[in-house]
Structures are given as structure tokens and as C-alpha cells.
């Protein structure tokens, strides 16, 4: 049998989502952002909602997310994505709106916007990439940076007396009556990616049904900012991030 006989449409078990563009991603090799983009693209394709999806990208490494998903995008100011999405979902109630935000964007400068959007029960989804660091600006301390963790602006390690505590913002968001689904996932193993996709499918469906705000935190790595190899980063994440940011659903109604 020739290879050509095998490469046939009916034999394909996996392919690149049509919602992903052909642009090469600018993310560092091993970065979690790319994996989450892929999962989101697949969900949009499977639910056949490309023409009704509007994404709101953050300021952070994912600022250029609009280069990779073939949908309409609105690039927000730092931290303000939830406010943008609130207006869009109210002006276009039949569309699907999501925000994609890092931990600096969402939990620091944009803490007010995410809290109030969730509290209003805005019919939108937030995907929150928690890599415990400001990746884009070169690895400074984030509100989610772990105690003792070294960053460019906490070179001796995060000292809670000086810098405050790592912020478990997803736990706070789960308390808000406006949210209908709040979960914490990861994307470091094939199993984790499959679980993430299930969570994403549920969250998008919730949003389409206008049930309330859905919120997915993805505990992520930033191997460049953490100054570790991608493999070591995954290990470090499991050992250090997961105890502080345990995976699983916090709310599902």
C-alpha cells in the first residue's frame, strides 16, 4: 500500500481547526497560550459559531491573539476586556462574546472590570490564563505570583509582608451570583487538554443560552518568564502552582 492511499480524508483522525489561521504564532515554544487558542478554535468550529463570535483580546502576550483565530476581534486596553464584552453582548444579544486575559490583565489592573462584569452576570465567557507572571513585559511580579517566587520585580522572591498575597481571584468570582460556571483547568497533558475542551464547550453553550457569566481559569506556564525549560515548567507548575490553585469546578449551575 502506498502512503498516498492512506492520506485520505476518511482516514484523518486529527486536523488543524479551520478557525485557526496559518499565521505562525509568536508565543515562546512550550507556552500554554498556543494550546488554549487551539482548543478554543476547535470549540468554535464544532459549535459552528464562527460567524457570531466576537473575541476581546487583552494586553499581555495574547495581545496578538487576533492573528490566530479567524473571527472578528476587538483589542481592549489593559484590563478592560470585560467592560468591552459587556457592551458587545448587550448590543448584540444573539452573538457569542468572550474575553481572553492574563493574570496581570485580569487580576491586577482589570480587577474591577472582571468583578463587575461577573457580578452583573454578563452573558459572556472569560478565559483567564494564570501563569503567575507578567510574561509580555519581561517577567515581572503578578498578583498571582506565588509566595517566594522570584520575578524581575521580586528578585528575592515574593515577600507577602512587602508584596501582599497571591490572589485567588477565581475563588472570589465563584462567589458572585452573576456567574453560572466557574472552573479551574490546565493544559499540560493530553488528558488536561481534553478536560479543558469539555469545560470550554460547556462554557460556550452556557453563554449562547445566556445563562450568566462563565469563567475558565487555565493554570499555565511561562517558561521564558520562569526561566525554565518547557518540561521543567510543567513539573514546577504541578508541584507549586496546583497546591495554591487547585484544579476543578468551583461552580456549575
Amino acid at each position, binding site marked *: 500500500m502506498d502512503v498516498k492511499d492512506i492520506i485520505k480524508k476518511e482516514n484523518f483522525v486529527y486536523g488543524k481547526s479551520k478557525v485557526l489561521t496559518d499565521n505562525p504564532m509568536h508565543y515562546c515554544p512550550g507556552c500554554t497560550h498556543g494550546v488554549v487558542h487551539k482548543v478554543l478554535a476547535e470549540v468554535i468550529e464544532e459549535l459552528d459559531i464562527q*460567524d457570531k463570535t466576537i473575541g476581546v483580546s487583552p494586553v499581555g502576550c495574547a495581545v496578538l491573539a487576533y492573528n490566530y483565530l479567524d473571527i472578528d476581534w476587538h483589542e481592549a486596553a489593559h484590563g*478592560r476586556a470585560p467592560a468591552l464584552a*459587556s457592551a458587545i453582548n448587550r448590543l448584540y444579544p444573539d452573538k457569542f462574546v468572550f474575553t481572553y486575559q492574563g493574570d496581570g490583565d485580569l487580576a491586577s489592573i482589570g480587577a474591577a472590570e472582571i468583578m463587575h462584569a461577573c457580578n452583573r452576570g454578563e452573558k459572556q465567557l472569560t478565559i483567564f490564563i494564570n501563569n503567575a507572571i507578567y510574561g509580555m513585559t519581561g517577567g515581572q511580579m503578578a498578583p498571582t505570583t506565588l509566595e517566594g517566587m522570584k520575578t524581575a520585580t521580586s528578585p528575592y522572591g515574593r515577600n507577602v509582608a512587602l508584596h501582599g498575597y497571591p490572589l485567588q481571584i477565581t475563588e472570589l468570582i465563584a462567589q458572585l451570583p452573576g456567574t453560572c460556571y466557574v472552573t479551574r483547568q490546565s493544559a499540560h497533558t493530553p488528558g488536561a487538554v481534553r478536560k479543558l475542551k469539555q469545560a470550554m464547550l460547556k462554557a460556550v453553550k452556557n453563554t449562547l443560552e445566556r445563562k450568566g457569566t462563565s469563567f475558565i481559569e487555565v493554570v499555565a506556564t511561562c517558561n521564558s518568564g520562569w526561566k525554565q525549560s518547557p518540561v521543567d515548567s510543567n513539573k514546577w507548575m504541578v508541584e507549586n502552582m496546583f497546591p495554591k490553585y487547585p484544579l476543578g469546578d468551583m461552580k456549575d449551575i
Partner: protein
Amino acid sequence: MADYMLMKGNEAIAEAAIRCGCDGYFGYPITPQSEILETLALRKPWEETGMVVLQAESEIASINMVYAGAGCGKKVMTSSSSPGISLKQEGITYIAGAELPCLIVNVVRGGPGLGTIQPAQSDYFQAVKGGGHGDYRLIVLAPASVQEMYDFVDLGFELAFKYRNPAMILSDGVIGQMMEKVKVGEYKKRLTDQEIVERYGSWATTGKTPNRQRNIITSLDLDANRQEQFNLKLQRKYREIEENETRFELINCDDADYILVAYGSSSRICQKAVDLCREKGIKVGLLRPITLFPFPTKAIQSFVGKVKGFLTVEMSAGQMVEDVRLAVNGQCRVEHFGHMGGVIPSPNEVVKALEDNFIKG
């Protein structure tokens, strides 16, 4: 038959928004403009026209809601007063940078800081020179009556969409709070989503359909040369706006020896001052800029050589006076008279300032 209503300037903004087919208002309370959001909440336009009204958690959030609504091709607006407008500058520069149409209303109060809730005109620089970071301009309209508060909502949106540029109504606490008779217009229908796709589908985020490329609303371009080209394009747009959209009013200027230059509520005070001067035999006229950007530079220049001097009257330390001086470029005397911090000048004070500066001694 035309409909007339008696209302406050702030209420006129709300009424005009509903009637002109506005799709969304996003605001946050602050004196002296809270009646705009209050009137909208009471009027419930979402039941009448489908207009969205939302009290946001802050001015920052509300302007970012406007940013998004504008990106979707919707006719959206916000309003605030000075401290709130300072907070909105982040969103305003993004909107200018993404070339989106929207309307922002500033009912100015005295500053700096928390200042006072009394009227002032001390946000002129912020409004006409950009306000936020980067090289950009707003289209700035200065109403001098409650009728103009009403009319400039529609005009502001029209200009904003024509040039895909944010427009601002620069009002003040006097115009916002005073009541006058207003001729209100017919209801204009809001555009349907399909009409928005037809008109603005080439740029607005209405959902990517198979027949077009994805639309991306952004002000980001990391390539320096492309960013400069984009800036040059913005500058060409501002020159075009200057060419086509400058608006002003001349009162008794034909035979004038002196010209008062004033906008908004100061221009109303100056109208009285012109009458008082004429009674005294001093030939005074009034030039009232209606657009502050674009500024009526040429109109002011046209009086050089004909008049003995200009007196600007502003409720500020003298901000617009700089643009009048730039216009005459040293060829005519330009003086300023004003009050600050919420104190309103009287017509007699204006007459005295004119006499002290130009006639006595």
C-alpha cells in the same frame, strides 16, 4: 407641527439620544451631569427604541464599553463631568487610535482635582488638544443653549460617523443645569443589525461571515514605519475636518472695533456685554466658536487689521486665548478675562475688562 419641551440641558442630551436613534449609553454618576443617566433610566428607552442604557462601575469601564460598542458599528455614547472625563482619557485615545465614531459629553465643573461642582470651562485644553496620549484630536462642539445641547447630539454622531472619529460635546454646569424651551425632532429609527452590516461591515465587528476577512478593531501596530503612516493618515483626516467642519457665529462684528471671543455659557454672558457696550457707544462684536476643534482660526484672522483688539472671555485661567493668539500671530492685541473655580463672570465685569484693557489709559 414641531414639538416643544421645557427641559434642562442634561435632560436634552438624554432626549436627543433616544430620538436620534442612539443604540447605547454607558455612564457613571457625577454632578453636574447625573440627570443624563437619570433621565434615561426614567425614560426606559430599551422598551421604546431598544436602546441599551447601563450604569457602569466606573468612567473607565463606561468609556471602554463605548469603545466596544463603537467597534461593533453601533451608535454609542457616554457622558461625565471633568474628574470622570480625566478617567475616560484612556478609552478616548484608544477610540481615536482605532478610528471609531462615538459621542462623549463633558458637562464641565471647576478643577483641578475634585475641585467643585460649580460650572467652569477649564477642560478646554484637554478637549481640543487631544487629552490622552498620542497625536489625536476630537471633534469638539460647544453648545451655548439647551437647544444646542439637543441638536449637537445628532450633529456629533453625524460628524463622528462621517470621519470615524470620536466627537465631544464640551458643555458646562450652567448649560447642563439651566432650563429652556427646546424644539425636539422626530424619532429616527435605530439601524437594524443587517443595516449595520451593510454600512459598516467593512470594518465593524459584526461577526465574520464566509464572504469577508475578519475585522479587527485595534490601535496596535508595532512596525514603526506603518505606525507613522497611520499617524500621517490621522493628520490628513484632521486637516480635512478643519477644512470642512469649522462652525462659528458672528454677532455685531461688521462694524466692531473690538471683538469678544467666547463659547458656551460665556458667550451668552458676552451677548449681554455686547449690548451694554453698544449702549455706551463702544462698538463691540462677539465671535462665538461653535466647533472648538476645528477652531475658527481663519474667521479670527479675517478681523486682523479691522479691529483694535480681541478679548476672550472664559471660565478658566485663559485656555482658548492661546488659540486666538496663535490665529492672529502677534498682529493684533489679544487679552483674556475670566473667572475660575465655579465663579461665573457678569456682563458688567466683561464690559469693565474690555474698557480696562483697551480703552482706558
